[in-house]
């Protein structure tokens, strides 16, 4: 009989060849864990190549999940458990494992040929190189084939179900319910019932294997977390972002027009939005990123909510059109799911190095609003906020997500749809100005005195025919103007329009109120920074944490917040872009901590860095 042990948190990494179905396995394990009520956070990691040669190091794909009985902020620094489907997966992931970690390997794949492919001189399962770990060598492939011997499917198809066997085994080991996975399999293979049955049988066989063999002496339980009451689902950043755009369209009562050109890691937003025509979403896969943003702007001009989605290389191409949108003063939402650059860089890896491009990467004085989500689920709210700013202030807004948020997932407490912000807008419908001689006219650049937004006068509105364009225009009338003083005025007015956007104050978390050091982040570093701060506080150290959602304009209280601490630390996955902006705008000498490995910070490294600053302040 195996004993059951209680744990408060576990980090598991499923790794295999990109053809081994590791993302699916991870997704299913996540769904089971969510159902159980643990808090969780996940991070997939896949190769840039679609099908790198089987069994090689570049072909390794993995999925990490961190789950716990308390609320957690990151997918975990280092896995306590590694499931390795072949020697490549073992070799690629071993450096991340702490001593004592559990390793489950598919021993069938440890053939001389496969070992040689990844440069193993000796079989690590047979020498003592894995001594520091608890290794379970399980012949996953042959056990699966054996379990499916009664099914009318080919041997290859049977072998392919080994990921379900592994999932069954790990689900048993961590006491996860498998009924949702069975339902999922039935649905997925609805067209081939015998395949569905076989996969379910493999799942059950894996589960039974754990229960009956001697090799697993202990199984574990992680009790549910006490999260805020509500209904939850698991969601990735890209899905949440797409839903945010759908919701914004509904709340604005505007049709959504998405112009996009495929690019990793933003394509999934295009895929998702293309399914939601029912909500009035039109998607346009353009010939390039310039056409994508151009069509979105054309649709905005016509009274739609124009959105364009891309990643760094594509955003660079959109730059000229974004400047046109600045000049036209029309709503436009530009989503940049950042990836490691420059150029193609590491297209499946994450980075935050497009901040300067978002803030300044245009010709002329062309300020736009910039908003960044901080967790996968937050992509929903951040997308709505970006749309709110765009339609209220008639301006382009850049939404800066990244690869880590895009593909990572976490539980999302479902919002009350009726409580989402009301984004309804009023189009111009008649004259807005009276000339000295009493004639009523329409002036396309006559502004709202509060927001400085100009009227949104869509073609088709009787009597409001007017011409807009990229040439400088006279304030008010919108007529072409080469007058120097008018240009100066217009440049300043366009800047003031952005500066005046109302954004909430930045909130500082400093439980004891005794901190001398503030750590300030933006975007996806929220999780690891928060986890590091918690760890420090548990050790009795004082540290304050704040996170910027609005990068332009910045919160009105930011200057005061920055001035309130002896030291401000700014960790970023770039070479110090926010740090440079803060130094320039606020004259504060921030401590920059930077890393550009294409991977998120670990909370461990941030804990070390922050401890150093706190102790020496």
């Amino acid at each position, binding site marked *: 009989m195996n004993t059951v042990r209680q744990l408060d948190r576990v980090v598991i990494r499923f790794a295999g060849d990109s053809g081994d179905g590791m993302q699916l396995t991870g997704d299913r394990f996540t769904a089971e864990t969510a159902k159980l009520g643990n808090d969780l956070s996940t991070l997939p990691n896949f190769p840039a190549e679609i099908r790198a040669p089987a069994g090689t190091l570049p072909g390794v794909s993995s999925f990490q999940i961190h789950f716990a009985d308390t609320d957690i902020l990151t997918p975990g620094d280092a896995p306590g458990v590694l499931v390795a489907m072949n020697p490549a997966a073992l070799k690629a992931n071993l450096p991340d494992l702490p001593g004592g970690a559990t390793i489950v390997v598919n021993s069938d794949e440890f053939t001389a040929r496969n070992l040689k492919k990844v440069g193993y001189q000796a079989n690590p399962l047979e020498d003592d190189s894995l001594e520091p770990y608890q290794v379970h060598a399980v012949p996953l492939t042959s056990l699966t084939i054996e379990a499916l011997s009664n099914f009318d499917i080919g041997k290859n198809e049977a072998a392919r179900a080994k990921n379900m066997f592994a999932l069954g085994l790990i689900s048993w080991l961590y006491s996860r319910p498998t009924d949702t996975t069975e339902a999922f399999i039935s649905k997925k293979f609805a067209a081939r019932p015998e395949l569905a049955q076989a996969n379910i049988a493999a799942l059950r066989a894996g589960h039974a294997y754990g229960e009956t063999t001697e090799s697993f002496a202990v199984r574990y339980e992680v009790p549910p977390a006490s999260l805020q009451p509500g209904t939850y*689902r698991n969601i990735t950043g890209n899905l949440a972002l797409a839903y945010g755009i759908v919701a914004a369209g509904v709340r604005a009562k505007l049709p959504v027009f998405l112009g996009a050109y495929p690019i990793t890691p933003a394509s999934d937003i295009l895929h998702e939005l293309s399914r939601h025509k029912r*909500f009035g979403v039109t998607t*346009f896969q353009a*010939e390039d990123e310039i056409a994508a943003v151009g069509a979105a702007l054309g649709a905005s001009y016509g009274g739609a909510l124009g959105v364009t989605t891309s990643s760094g290389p594509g955003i660079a191409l959109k730059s000229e059109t974004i400047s*046109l949108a600045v000049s036209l003063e029309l709503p436009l939402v530009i989503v940049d799911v950042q990836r490691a650059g420059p150029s193609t860089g590491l297209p499946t890896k994450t980075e935050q190095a497009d901040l300067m491009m978002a803030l300044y990467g245009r010709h002329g004085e062309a300020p736009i609003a910039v908003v960044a989500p901080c967790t996968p689920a937050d992509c929903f709210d951040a997308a709505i906020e970006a749309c709110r700013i765009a339609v209220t202030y008639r301006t382009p807004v850049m939404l800066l997500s990244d690869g880590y948020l895009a593909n990572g997932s976490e539980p999302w407490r479902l919002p009350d749809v009726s409580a989402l912000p009301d984004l309804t807008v009023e189009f111009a419908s008649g004259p807005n100005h009276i000339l000295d001689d009493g004639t009523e006219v329409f002036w396309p650049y006559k502004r709202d005195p509060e927001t400085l937004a100009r009227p949104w006068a869509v073609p088709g509105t009787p009597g409001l025919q007017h011409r807009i*364009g990229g040439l400088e225009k006279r304030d008010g009338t919108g007529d072409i103007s080469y007058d120097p003083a008018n240009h100066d005025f217009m440049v300043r007015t366009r800047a003031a329009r952005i500066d005046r956007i109302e954004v909430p104050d930045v909130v500082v978390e400093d439980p004891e109120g005794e901190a001398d050091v503030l750590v300030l982040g933006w975007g996806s570093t929220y999780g690891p920074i928060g986890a590091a701060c918690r760890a420090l506080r548990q050790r009795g150290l004082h540290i304050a944490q704040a996170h910027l959602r609005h990068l332009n304009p910045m919160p009105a209280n930011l200057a005061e917040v920055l001035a309130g601490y002896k030291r401000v630390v700014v960790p970023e996955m770039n070479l110090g872009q926010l740090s440079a902006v803060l130094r320039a705008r606020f004259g504060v000498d921030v401590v920059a901590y930077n890393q550009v490995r294409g991977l998120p910070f670990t909370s461990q490294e941030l804990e070390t860095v922050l401890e150093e600053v706190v102790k020496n302040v």
Partner: protein
Amino acid sequence: MSDKLSLPIQPLKAKDFKSDQEVRWCPGCGDYAILAAVQSFLPELGMERERICFVSGIGCSSRFPYYLNTYGMHSIHGRAPAIATGLATSRPDLSVWVVTGDGDALSIGGNHLIHALRRNVNLKILLFNNRIYGLTKGQYSPTSETGKITKSTPYGSADAPFNPLSLVLGAEASFVARTLDSDRKHLQEVLRAAAVHQGSAFVEIYQNCPIFNDDAFEVLKSPESRDEALIRLVHGEPIVFGPEGRHCVVRNGWGLAVAETADVAESDIVVHDSTAADPSYAFALSRLSGDSLDHTPIGVFRSVRRDTYDSIVRQQVSDAQSDGAAEAELAGLLTGSDTWTIL
């Protein structure tokens, strides 16, 4: 925003389409003639002014929208077809026109032009071809002749030019025509045909730039040469041209050639068919005029019906919404199929 085009109560006149902006092309520029022709043609659309929108790129030609009392956008260099695609796709109630130049449409914007045509978006595209960059003061363009001496090619251009009509026919354009700035009647006939076409209509307008490329189309305009050089295409009629119909067009190998009418049987003369399904015929017509323009067909080369991108896309959206409001389903969408509840 209904699909129906509503008619103005009072018939409009050319002057109703003039904006209050001062027209600023060089004296003698062909753009003036085109503007006047368009202004006096627009009332024929029978549409209210607010239903008409002109979108342009950058160039002398692209100043066009400023001078029309319709909606208009003077956008950025080469991108007008893309911007207009977004507008036309989301607003079927509008008549959307693109005004562009040879540099704007064929150089920087070449990609957008071919893809708008391939999709057959409901746009009327007017390309003002002066075979030069006007606004930037006289560099050669993608339609300038090889060897042309310009500011940027003091030793003569080494580029081979595009034949714009050959190009757009290769891009699957469903309506292709050519006309001249100086021939108002012909220009308006072509505009009329373009306006009623469902889908992308591409119209090349030969336009004189007296400042940087004067008399580029003189062979088609001067009384001495024009009858010999101009081939006026009329659907359903044999293609004969020249004084007393001296010349004609006949089949020749894979293409077409000019022959002497007296030398060929009447049955060998090609009868113009702008509705031919295969674009090869229109392509062959487009090849008759070389760099020297000595046999230049004008008129409608091709006009065929093909589904338009924007109507297919709108149909998909409206089918998806056919059984009522989806707004109430937003909560359901967000919820998805796998949820759990914490009490």
